[in-house]
């Protein structure tokens, strides 16, 4: 039961003023600008855009500054902001085959056309703290090579040519349900699951993906392809009657190729999991692909082994960190009246239990 209690306004105002002061920190240290966060904490900005489900690097950087670096709080701010935006429409599905790739690797085909392009990766670094970053200084310019001009083909297309991989089909009714427009209803179906996963909490999706690797619904994934880069976004403009590019976004895409020995309904072939996430966010994209594949057990005629990652309801209802944090954190807010009634109940139960004990002792 919730009962409104007045009071505490002054305490709240003062708490928020102190918060602002603590956010600024030691004033003898230069203040961070939003542009500095956008440029130098780009992967935090990317995570806030992905889970805030709004592509706008400046807004994400502002949210990180306002939240003192608490990324879930920043995601909360972005989600709240996006509800204030009028929806102008839906884009055409982005064509990731047209991506200008910064990075493109395949763990399955060494000599994939387009090659293995590492990009600005943490892979193969030694994970030793670099104390040189403590000192200000100019960064050496990165080396350059002959730029690739052709588009980079998807790796899975090569397996497809041999008919060895499950094909993706565009359904007749290709209008996906939208989590931001209607409440989540089960069964969700793959498009809605992908929307939930791409905006889901990175830690949760990573944990779910890891659980499949450790044996809870194992699905034998290889990273067929991981690519990061820029793609244009197109939308049909009603006033014009044709579609135009309205901007461009950086995306991370992961396609897994999963060993599959066949089922009652499907022949032996490779199956696929898919991850697509705003920004340079490859841990999340790989995790998404593994969980997507695990959730496809029913359509592929696999057994449900009861693994958490196969459970659509469990995964989708617990992947959103804003729903989760809202429900979790509300229990720290005043519950004085509720607790009073709980207190009364426990006192009454204790009284009854003690009377019972005395009676037993007397007998």
């Amino acid at each position, binding site marked *: 039961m919730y009962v409104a209690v007045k009071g505490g306004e002054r305490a709240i105002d003062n708490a928020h003023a102190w918060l602002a002061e603590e956010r600024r920190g030691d004033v003898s240290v230069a203040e961070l600008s939003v542009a500095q966060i956008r440029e130098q904490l780009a992967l935090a900005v990317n995570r806030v855009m992905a889970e805030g*489900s709004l*592509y706008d690097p*400046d*807004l994400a950087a502002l949210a990180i500054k306002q939240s003192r670096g608490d990324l879930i709080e920043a995601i909360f701010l972005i989600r709240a902001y996006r509800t204030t*935006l*009028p*929806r*102008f*429409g*839906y*884009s055409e*599905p*982005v064509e*990731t*085959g047209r991506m*200008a*790739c*910064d*990075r493109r690797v395949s763990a399955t085909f*060494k000599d994939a056309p387009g090659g*293995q*392009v590492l*990009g600005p990766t943490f892979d193969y670094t030694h994970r030793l703290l670099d104390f040189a970053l403590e000192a200000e200084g100019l960064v050496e310019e*990165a080396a*350059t090579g*002959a*730029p690739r*001009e052709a588009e980079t083909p998807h790796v*899975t297309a090569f397996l497809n040519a041999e008919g060895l991989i499950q094909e*993706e*089909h*565009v*359904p007749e009714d*290709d*209008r*996906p349900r*939208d*989590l*931001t427009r209607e409440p989540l209803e089960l069964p969700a179906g*793959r*498009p809605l699951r*992908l*929307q939930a996963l791409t905006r889901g909490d990175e830690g949760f999706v990573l944990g779910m993906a890891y659980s499949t690797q450790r044996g809870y619904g194992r699905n034998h994934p290889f990273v067929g392809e991981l690519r990061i880069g*820029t793609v*244009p*976004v197109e939308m049909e*403009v009603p006033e*014009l009657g044709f579609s*135009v*590019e*309205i*901007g*461009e*976004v950086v*995306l991370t895409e992961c*396609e897994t190729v999963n060993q599959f020995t066949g089922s009652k309904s499907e022949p032996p072939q490779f199956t*696929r999991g*898919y991850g*697509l996430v*705003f920004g340079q966010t490859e841990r999340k994209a790989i995790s998404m692909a593994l969980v997507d594949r695990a959730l496809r057990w029913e359509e592929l005629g696999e057994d449900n082994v009861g693994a958490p990652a196969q459970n659509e309801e469990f995964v989708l209802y617990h992947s959103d960190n804003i729903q989760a944090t809202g429900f979790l954190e509300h229990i720290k807010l005043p519950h004085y009246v509720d607790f009073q009634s709980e207190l009364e109940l426990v006192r009454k139960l204790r009284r009854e239990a003690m009377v019972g004990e005395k009676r037993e002792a007397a007998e």
Partner: protein
Amino acid sequence: MKDFTRDENAERRGWMGLLARSAAAELLAQWDAAGMAPAFTWLRAPEVGGVMVRGRAGAVGAAFNLGEMTVTRCSLKLADGRVGHAVVQGRDRRKAEVAALCDALMQGDEAGAVRAAVLDPLAAAAKERARVRAAKAAATKVDFFTMVRGE
């Protein structure tokens, strides 16, 4: 006023896309330097909103909703009746205004001047940025060599 055929749509798609993708500061710098200030009336004043970006499962399968992006749109009419539209990335209202003005001017005699002063420099800068990134990516391409086992 021009009657837009298919090919002209392609041309218009080209400049609208370029304007939409451009950084606000860069577009405004070019526009202000060009010194054009045509009179216009709003058909729809700049409005900030969101567009839901879609992807496809497995890159080529069923469409799904990926997340939104911020967009600003507006429409305006020049004194001679030409109409310009803009749907541009971000939340900069003046960027949308200038993009719509360019769109309107590109449909008439000023097309050459707008192209030279605004579009060409923007396109060149975008192309150069893309080229530099692609060149840096190319330098991180792995050259495999196979170790031959000794006889």
